[in-house]
């Protein structure tokens, strides 16, 4: 009897995991109808969506950062809003404000006009062009999933995901994101140039007469169910310890920090880094047909989770040391628990 019950539980869990993987691949297939290549970026965006996090996409212009998010919004069938951040934008422009409207009786009244921040999928395009004041308007929405305007607090509808883009090249007239906001992003994904063989597909899909139609393959409810499935994935103690060691290794002068981190890092990751490693690792475990997170899953997502949480000092910038180099060093120095070598 016990074995039969166990088998039923296992089959139910296996069905959930299979469904998770199926939806993931369906969404990716829809996005890839339009996007050529950038598989790692697409997987990272989907991982963040299914793990309940936010994504910061960084890349030079023309690589499809905005296109990825737009295609994803069409494939998921969620309420989507795009905010083009500009230097003169104010917090009220994205949160909403009270406006004077005319009533049917000819009178006037103050009503709350929602801003574009109140949606499911937010594309914060070129987020670093807004002033820190406007950028700070995202903090509450990203962490608390609510917006407070005056005395009004609006709880944002789940799933809620902010996908921001920024251009690392054009620094004139931009405002670097504060550490508090960077820490709220689950992933920072670097969008690179396509491969040589991908250029032909890009030309065909973007300059041909045939229009690409992206169909919604899932909805918000399914996304929330999949998030629950992801959070249910088991985490062994050695994996927790390894994730903690990795995050502590990003903190200068900690016992796990390599020499390079102590030398080039001003600030390390916060505990949000461990949360991000665990959530993203759970999604990776499900995608790899496993029911428990492994240390390899944590290693896989370490770069995306930790690279924007490492604040480098002036010496690192002067010597062109990148966070990815430091993370590589961390992954090499921090041994997995129970490692025999």
């Amino acid at each position, binding site marked *: 009897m016990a074995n039969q019950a*166990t088998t039923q539980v296992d089959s139910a869990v296996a069905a959930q995991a299979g469904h998770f993987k199926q939806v993931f691949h369906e969404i990716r297939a829809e996005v890839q109808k339009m996007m050529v290549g950038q598989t790692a970026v697409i997987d990272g965006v989907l991982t963040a969506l299914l793990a309940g996090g936010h994504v910061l996409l960084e890349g030079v212009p023309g690589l499809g950062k905005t296109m990825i998010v737009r295609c994803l919004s069409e494939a998921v069938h969620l309420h989507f809003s795009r905010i083009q951040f500009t230097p003169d934008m104010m917090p009220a422009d994205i949160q909403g404000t009270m406006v004077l409207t005319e009533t049917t009786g000819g009178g006037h009244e103050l009503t709350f006009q929602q801003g574009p921040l109140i949606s499911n999928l937010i594309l914060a395009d070129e987020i670093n062009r807004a002033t820190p004041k406007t950028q700070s308007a995202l903090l509450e929405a990203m962490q608390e999933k609510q917006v407070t305007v005056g005395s009004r607090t609006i709880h944002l509808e789940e799933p809620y995901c902010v996908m921001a883009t920024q251009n690392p090249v054009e620094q004139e007239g931009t405002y670097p994101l504060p550490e508090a906001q960077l820490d709220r992003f689950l992933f920072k994904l670097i969008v690179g140039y396509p491969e040589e063989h991908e250029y032909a597909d890009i030309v065909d899909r973007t300059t041909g007469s045939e229009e690409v139609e992206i169909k919604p393959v899932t909805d918000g409810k399914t996304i929330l169910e999949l998030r629950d499935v992801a959070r249910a994935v*088991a985490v*062994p103690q050695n994996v927790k310890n390894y994730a903690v060691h990795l995050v502590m290794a990003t903190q200068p002068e900690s016992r796990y920090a390599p020499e390079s981190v102590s030398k080039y890092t001003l600030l390390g990751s916060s505990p949000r880094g461990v949360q991000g490693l665990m959530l993203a690792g759970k999604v990776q475990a499900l995608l790899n047909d496993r029911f428990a997170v*492994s240390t390899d899953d944590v290693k896989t997502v370490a770069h995306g989770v930790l690279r924007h949480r490492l604040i480098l000092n*002036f010496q690192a*910038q002067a010597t062109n040391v990148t966070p990815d180099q430091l993370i590589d060093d961390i992954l090499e120095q921090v041994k997995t*628990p129970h490692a025999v070598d």
Partner: protein
Amino acid sequence: MNELRRNLDLLARKGSRYLRRFALKGAMEKAWPLVGIVALLFPLGYFGYRCYEVYEAFQATATGASFSLVSVGWGLMWTVLIALLIPAAFWLLLYSLESRRYHGAKESLARAWPVVFLLAIAFPVGYCVSYLFQILGQYATVSYGFSPFLSLAVLLAVVLVVAIPVVFIGLWAFFGFSFGRIDRQTSLALFDRELGLKDRLQSADEFRVKEQATPFEQAAITDAMPHAEQALQTRLANIDIAKPAMDTIKWPLVFAAMFIFVLGLSTNGLQFETSPVELAMVWHDDHVDPNESEEDVKPPIFPDEKSTEQDVPEPDAPVAEEQKPTEMKKATEATNSESSLAESDEAQSVPQQTSESGLSASASKQNQPGQAASNIAGLGNEKQKKEEEVAQKKKPKKSDPEKENDSKEEEKDDSASGIAGGKGTGSGKQSASTEMLEQHSRSREDDFDQDVDQESDDEEDEEQEAASAAKPMLNQRKAPVDRQLTPSGVGFEENEDANGRGGPGGLKKTRGVAAMLLGVPMPDKLRSQINVGRIKVQRERSIPIPNQVQTTNSENRGQMDDSVGTFSRTELKPWMRDVAKKYFLDLRQSNNSDN
């Protein structure tokens, strides 16, 4: 579930047994630094001993004992072989035996190639070093042989380099194998890693003991079952469990030991090159005739001695006496050719005074030229030198044509009487070495710049005048050299050096206050600064300074009225940010422009 537990237990025991085998490997890794340190200590101690031995041997030469350079070389070579090869071969043997278990013989040898390379080059290097010392020994007509220290060296090497690490490794391996505890998770991690199971076995073993396993944990356990059965069929002998013990940190020890040996070799080589007195002593010990009385011993004439034996030739001197200088003398002449040639001119024109040079007599009898011997002889010739200097000062100053004529005449006289008299041959014939000296001296004179000669002559004159304290006649004083192109002063002798450059020669002299003054007045175009100049800004990273506070229970802790600590991290000021920003923008712009 029970089947999984049984399988995991079997895997844990299997992994534990396998890992305990690596106690020997761990002991080797732990002992490798010890081997390196011991291998470093032994040559250090032996090197110090050899230095002391060389010093004592050198001291003993004063009492007539012989000094063998080759024994030093042989001793060092044997030390290389003992102190480096024995531990290297020892380590290679153990490593090959151990690593073959999980790497295979081919790969273990491939990974051990540095040791093999060391073994391969050690013998040729040792042979070359010994051969070098053999050549040197033959050249110096000394016998070579094994160092008496060899037997002690072998004993110390065996005890220190081999026995101590062996005992260490044996004890470590015994205790590690007998009392070592291999963690269960570590044993299972061995199979996870070998089979690429992504921690499935470790996770299942952890979730299995939970009372309330979640559905995903239960699914993870079920998922691990087939993998556990598969792991039981796996041979762990093929597991690449660890890297070889060839840690790069330990290699500098070997190179440091080799460097010390090279240092020791070079030290002995320097002794040979710069201490010809030792060679003279060796030659003296080998060739001295005990029946020969001190009166029969005739002092040799060194080129730096101010003697003119050519004025008093000795026709009765045997021809063999002329050819007595050995090969060692030639070698020493070659090494000291520069100093001898430089002083040969003076030796030719100096009158013979050898009665006071008692110390030089015994050394020069052996016809052993050299700086040290000449210094000894020079002690007795100081008085003679002073007299010569006074005599030179009393000579009236001649013009250049006269000087040239005189110098030519002197050269002729020297060639006729034989400069070899200054070399100690005592015959009127001109020996081959004397011809070489003269040719070399002439060619060198031709090569030298004329201005340098004049300057050196002036300096010699000045030194002679200063030594004699004789005041020159007023009308013989040269006019002071100034920057004018015409001689200054009235009543002074015309100064041919007054060429406006502060002295003779085409180059402008840089000595004296006159050289520091501009010849042509120039307006000062250096703009002054209104402040103290550039300000150097240096940023230093500061460490937070914690406050020492006493620990109290939270319920007993009242309202905190003290600061919890200061965090002295310096925030970048706006202008500093701008500087950094501008730097990177410029850097990026320059990179873009380069691309």
